[in-house]
């Protein structure tokens, strides 16, 4: 069980990254949220929010998320492992070698950055390289929806990963004759779309629409369950827990993520903006460890 790794991971976090020494004084179980990151960044004057392990020299400093003055310090091993996680998500989504994969999001988005070795400096193989797919990116600006429609028409990708904020502009930019991808995969930082919205987009597009769960501050993403809506299957590189019950109607809590793939910047029990539960048994799709999201 990957959760068996957690105690060792927590000890290492405390030894290596100042955030966890600070957090442990208040929360021995290390639960922490964005405010803790920001407070640590301010108190230590540390752009990494106290998560960087100084024994691992970084090769890149990507910003965590838009408008957030915090950065990752990542080494080549981190990049490699994150690309493998992304490739694993692509496989879960049904992407196979030789497919064309379009990405309508910013280059800084983890969904784009780890897709190709040409998108992220010091990355030796991105998800597309690992799967022998052909990636093409369109910046995530809403005003570039026409260009994305043009990509659909001329490139005919099998899959389009798209930021939630640009789904509507794209739907306005396409017409009946625009070729549809085999799958449209919506992602957004800590904002899962409700099932009725996904259904609405699916109806408007006339093609399958699904979504990946994503939290940029934990460098976390998880592909969807093919059977149950708002249910996701994180890879073993992510330890996902639900902290404290929200109430009697929902036996779960706030979703926390421990990222075992990144080691230069340590992420242990980061409390995301999602609420939900970790499915205790087997998911209807047959797998275990499903995360069921109630709301963000």
């Amino acid at each position, binding site marked *: 069980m990957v959760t068996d790794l957690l105690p060792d991971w927590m000890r290492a976090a405390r030894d290596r990254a100042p955030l966890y020494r600070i957090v442990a004084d208040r929360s021995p179980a290390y639960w922490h949220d964005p405010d803790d990151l920001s407070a640590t960044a301010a108190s230590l004057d540390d752009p990494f929010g106290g998560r960087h392990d100084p024994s691992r020299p970084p090769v890149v400093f990507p910003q965590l998320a838009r408008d957030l003055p915090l950065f990752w310090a990542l080494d080549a091993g981190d990049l490699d492992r994150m690309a493998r996680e992304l490739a694993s998500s692509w496989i879960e989504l049904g992407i196979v070698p030789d497919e064309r994969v379009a990405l309508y999001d910013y280059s800084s988005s983890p969904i784009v950055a780890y897709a190709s070795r040409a998108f992220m400096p010091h990355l030796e193989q991105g998800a597309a390289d690992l799967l022998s797919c*052909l990636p093409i990116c369109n910046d995530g600006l809403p005003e570039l929806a026409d260009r994305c429609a043009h990509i659909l028409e001329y490139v005919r990708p099998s899959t389009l990963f798209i930021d939630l904020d640009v789904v509507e502009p794209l739907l306005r930019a396409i017409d009946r004759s625009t070729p549809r991808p085999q799958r449209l995969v919506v992602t957004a930082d800590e904002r899962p779309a409700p099932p009725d919205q996904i259904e609405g987009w699916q109806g408007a597009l006339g093609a399958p629409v699904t979504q990946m769960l994503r939290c940029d501050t934990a460098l976390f993403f998880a592909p969807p369950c093919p059977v149950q809506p708002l249910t996701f299957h994180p890879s073993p590189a992510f330890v996902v827990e639900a902290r404290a019950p929200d109430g009697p109607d929902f036996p779960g809590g706030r979703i926390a993520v421990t990222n075992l793939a990144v080691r230069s910047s340590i992420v242990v029990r980061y409390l995301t903006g999602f609420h939900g539960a970790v499915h205790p048994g087997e998911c209807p799709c047959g797998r275990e460890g499903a995360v069921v999201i109630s709301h963000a």
Partner: protein
Amino acid sequence: MREPDGEFFDPGEAAPVDQLVARRWQAINEVLRVAFEDLPFYRSRWTAESFRPPARADADTFSAVPIMRKLDLVQASRQNHSMQSGVEALLGQAPSNLVVTSGTSGFHTFALITGHDLDGAGLRAQARELWTMKVRPGMRVLSISPAWHALGLYESRALTEIGAVPVMPWGTLTPRFAGDILTAVSQLKPEHLLVTARAIRMVLAECDRQKLDAGRVFRTVRYLGCAGEPLSGPFRDYLRNRLGLEDVFERGGSGDGMFGGAECTAHLGHHISADVHYVEIVSPRTGATLGPGQRGTAVVTNLSLGRSVYIRFDTEDVAEIIPRRCPCGRTHPLVEFYGRLADSVVVEDRIVAPGDVRMALDEIPTTRFRPFSMGGDGAGGVVIGLHGAEDLSAAELAGAKADASARLGLAVAIVPAGVERAGWKEVRVARPDTADD
């Protein structure tokens, strides 16, 4: 890893000129052969124009190769109804990346890249470009290399090859992300910034909005590499002084044609890797190849395969080859770029480009750094639409007009124009989908 103090990225940058020329024709022979035998775009066009590649290309025979333009690629892509326009020389390799080119003609074409070029000639040219601008191993370099743009991909690989440590702000090079770029500079303290001139203007505007001392925020930044438009002397001085920089480098090239180059510390022009790309200057009026020191449009031929290959591709960028050897010791040609031909005014045999108007306006205190648009007046003069001209007094406006006229050597009218507050290029990119070109 290379010597951090080394002047050149590789010894080939100082190769003897005759050696570079010999290699160029050798490469062109191979490119022409492959194009005629394997690439439908060239084969059909050249056959239609009764052109066959010569057995051995040289300057004379090469000038007979039909020039192609963006619209030719657009037409081919439309006809094929495909991302492929028939210029893809992939050497039997699977492509690793697909990039979209600029939409300046209202239609985006695409280009394919394989690992052969991403790790080969394309990488070498881009790594030299960064090295020329003082990017060094271990240096923190702010980079927002867009993943849709060919030169962004090469930049990413070149930063890897050099061993620089990129600082990567969220988003892209548009005003809404100025705050994130500023945050990255203040938090991560890079030594080098690779941005566009437009981006640095918007970041400085954000600095002003937040009432920050730019000199303090940028105190660790030693160098600035600016793409996107020609930089005037006063603008370089302003950046150097305000940000406390050691040097400001102009860089640039074309996503269409997938080539570029940067200035060295001598600032005489852009060093273009002559063993990777061959740049000619061609008269837009006659199509004749022009000599060094003469202004026309830059026509590029890629000398490497394993990618979409552009042969005598007219970038429609106004440029000239600088007729001198660079004191830095690089033997590759120096090319100066002045802006898009479509934005220029052609007066008889003279091209007045946006870069010329920018230089003139920046020398005049009342018009310095103001965004502008330009067009012909139909009588051999130029009309400049100046942002904020309505704020100038009649005397100031008359003075600016006379001064600009004297500097440009032709009649000038200055009228108010409500262009976006970033620079001349925004006028051309009124369509947002070309905002990052």
